[in-house]
Every structure is written in C-alpha cells, then in structure tokens.
C-alpha cells in the first residue's frame, strides 16, 4: 500500500512530460485503483511508465500533414450544413447567420459579419430582475426619431417638418419630449424645435428651397437620440435564472462601459472587434468558440484540435488574418505554392518581375515538380559528414 502523497510525487517525477489534464487524470485513477488493489510502489511506477509511453506514441509525429487533416476534418462535416444564410435560431426575433455561411465568415476574418450580435450579461444587481434588465437594455438600444414616430409629414406651406410621436413607444424608450427637444437642439444649430403635446415641429432657421428642408428632415430623422452607435434592436431573454440582453448590431468597446453590465462575460460575434478591444489571444479563443458553436448548432462534431490549429494559424502574426488568397495562403514563401492556389498568372508575373527564387521547401512546390514531398517519411533527409581532406 502506497500513500497518496507518494503517488503524487511519483506522478510529478515520472510523468512530467504529460499535459496537466492527463497528469491529473492519471493521479486520480491511481488513487482509486490503489484503494481497490493495494498496489506496490514498483507497480505504480510501471503503470506510470506505460502511460507515458502510450502518450508519447499518440503524439503527432514530426512530418504529419496536420493542416491537410484539419482541412479535411472541418471540410467534410461542413458539406452537411445548411446553406441557408438566414435563420431565426436561438434568439427570437434576431437574425443570426448560421451554418456554412457563418463558418466562411469566420475563416475569412470579415471586417463586419453580416449579422453582428452582442450577448450582454448583467451584473449582480440587474440580472435577476426583468425591469432592471430593461433599464440597462434602454441604455444600449439605439433609438432614433424614426423608431418613435407615429407619422412624419413635411409641411411645405409653413416650411416645417412635423413629427407625431407615439406616446407608447416614447414611454418604452425612457425618453420624454423635453429630452428629445434638448438633445436635438444641442446637435442641430441650424434648426429650431418646438414641442406641443406629442407633436414635434422642426423649423430650419433659413430655408430657400424645399430640398433644404428635406435634407435637414433626413438628418433629424436618423439622428441617434440615445444608445450606442451601431446597435439597433435589443431582446431580453431569460437564461437559467438570469436575464441576458441580445443586441442587433455590435459596439463592443462602448458596451463594456455601460453601467449595469457584466464586462467579464459580455461578448460579440465580431472577431475583429474582440481583437481590437481584448487582444489577439482573446480573438483566438473567440474563433475557436464561434466555430465550435456553429458546428454544434448544426449537430456536427469536429475535434477541437483541428479548430485550434486554424485559430492559431489565423492569429500567428498578432492580427486576425483570413485563410485564403488574402491571408495565410497568400503569404506563403514559395512562389509556386501561391501560383498553384489562385490567380496563377499574376503571381508568376510578379515573381518574375522581382526575380524571386523558390528553394522548393514546401509540399505544394514539390508535388508540382514531381519530387518526394516533405511530409511524413519524406521529411527525413540524410546528411553525411564527409572528410573534406582525406586522411592520410
């Protein structure tokens, strides 16, 4: 019978090459079996040795074409995904891009995803109460005059723009007529505003043509009265025992400053924005999460290791780069490898112009030339140390 502390030190000493999680599991299992079978010290050592050997056998070998394997492993299940871009899934009322289009969007590292969404978690004070959650949502939700108006008319005789506000919507947005007037007055110096009940009159200070009135009306209509820029509708949903706000549109930097939210968990599906605000490592995690989530929604399972490889490659240079012509493939060192992928002629012309040479180190170039490919056993080279001068 060996004590738990001896097992612990044995694991630490003999199995130091194992990853943390495996070590932990090994230790726990050893404790369990030790209780059951009363192992000897030599037996434990033998078990550990066996495990380390098995682990080393399962490690990816040098020369394994992991990129190709990852591409196949992600590509194959992707063929079974929906081709539907739009779907009302997960969140009611908010549009989310799903399936293959979403995967392409992530891998292409688009500046703006087609359906940016923020998931805003709330702090202790606000997360259990619907009213309080609504209060926070109002701070985030972007509201313009168009959102509040019941009707809008252009009074050409008096040269006025008349907006009838819907009292119900006004109430819901948490604004008052006075607030709207004040807000508009500070933003527009060229016009006078008049409030009468629920009617708002916009009178430009100097107008010569109707087009002037029209122009100012357009501006007033779309002026943001409150909320964050880039954010539209918000939806509150109960998840477990807390309320979570989903927003259409994303403004990650600003939303983190809104009082009442939990900045530790709040996130966006715009990976570039995450890279800008939280850094490249957070972006890597976001890529992994987003791809895994999209796959799971479609009922597909891909080993994380493949996705981790993709995310690592995309963030290798400290910025989020797409996979493809404009990113990773486009920056390959070999001219032939680039030419073999896309826009062949252009790459060859450019290489000729610059007088580039190709040392034929990569896989694609060697396939093209018809030489053994540096993958697997092909990666092994034989070097001989020849005596430069023969010994006498």
């Amino acid at each position, binding site marked *: 019978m060996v004590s738990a502390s001896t097992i612990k030190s044995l694991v630490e000493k003999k199995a130091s090459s194992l990853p943390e999680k495996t070590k*932990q599991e090994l230790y726990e299992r050893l404790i369990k079996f030790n209780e059951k079978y009363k192992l000897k010290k030599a037996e434990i050592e033998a078990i550990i040795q066996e495990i380390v050997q098995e682990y080393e056998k399962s490690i990816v070998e040098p020369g394994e074409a992991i990129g190709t394997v990852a591409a196949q492993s992600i590509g194959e299940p992707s063929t079974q995904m929906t081709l539907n871009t739009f779907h009302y899934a997960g969140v009611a009322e908010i549009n989310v891009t799903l399936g293959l289009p979403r995967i392409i969007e992530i891998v292409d590292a688009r500046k703006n995803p087609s359906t940016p969404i923020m998931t805003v978690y709330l702090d202790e004070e606000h997360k259990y109460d619907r009213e309080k959650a609504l209060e926070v949502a109002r701070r985030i939700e972007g509201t313009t005059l168009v959102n509040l108006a019941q009707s809008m008319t252009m009074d050409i005789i008096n040269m006025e723009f008349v907006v009838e506000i819907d009292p119900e919507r006004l109430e819901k947005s948490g604004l008052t007529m006075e607030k709207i007037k004040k807000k508009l007055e500070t933003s527009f110096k060229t016009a006078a505003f008049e409030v009468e009940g629920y009617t708002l009159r916009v009178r430009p200070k100097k107008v010569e043509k109707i087009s002037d009135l029209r122009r100012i009306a357009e501006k007033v209509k779309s002026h943001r009265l409150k909320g964050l820029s880039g954010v539209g509708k918000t939806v509150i949903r109960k998840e477990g025992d807390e309320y979570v706000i989903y927003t259409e549109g994303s403004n990650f930097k600003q939303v*983190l*400053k809104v009082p009442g939210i939990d900045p530790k968990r709040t*996130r966006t599906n715009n990976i570039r924005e995450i890279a800008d605000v939280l850094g490249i490592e957070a972006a890597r995690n976001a890529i992994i999460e987003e791809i895994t989530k999209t796959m799971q929604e479609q009922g597909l399972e891909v080993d994380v290791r493949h996705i*981790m490889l993709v995310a690592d490659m995309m963030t290798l240079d400290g910025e989020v780069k797409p996979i493809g012509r404009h990113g990773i493939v486009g920056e390959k060192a070999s001219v032939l490898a680039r030419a073999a992928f896309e826009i062949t002629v252009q790459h060859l012309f450019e290489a000729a112009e610059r007088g580039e040479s190709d040392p034929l180190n990569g896989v694609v170039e060697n396939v093209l030339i018809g030489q053994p490919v540096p993958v697997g056993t092909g990666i092994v080279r034989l070097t001989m140390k020849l005596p430069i001068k023969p010994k006498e």
Partner: protein
Amino acid sequence: MTAKKEFAIFDHELVPEHRVLSEEEKAELVKKYKIKLSQLPQIKADDPAVQALDAKPGDVIEIKRKSPTAGVYYYYRIVVGD
C-alpha cells in the same frame, strides 16, 4: 469618466493570463525549443494585452492558455512593433 475605473481586459473570460518573460527566461526558452526568437508567433505592440503589461518590442510574452485537451499549457509570442 475618470471616477469609474476602466475595466481591466484580463478580467474578461476570453483573455488568458499574459506575463512578460525575463531575459534569463528568454534564453532558457530559446535553448529548450532550439529556436530563434524571431521564429516565435508574434503579438503587436499595440495589442491591448501588451499595452496593459507595458511590454516593449522584443519582449517575449508567456500566455497561459486553457485548453480542453491539455488542461493548461504555455504559449509564447514575441512583441513586434508596427
């Protein structure tokens, strides 16, 4: 907005722990993996995490990543200027 303290990015779920390596640790790293520092993955000097740590180009950042397969492992990035 000076009264309310700016939210520290390292508190966010998505951001792993970052640490700047000392010169000795850098030498050790190079020796352990038999690499040149320039072969390391990069991180931009204007990356929010680098700014928060006040690291300079040429520094090596050690990142303690959480992984579903290995539990915890370390990743290294070298800070590069723009």
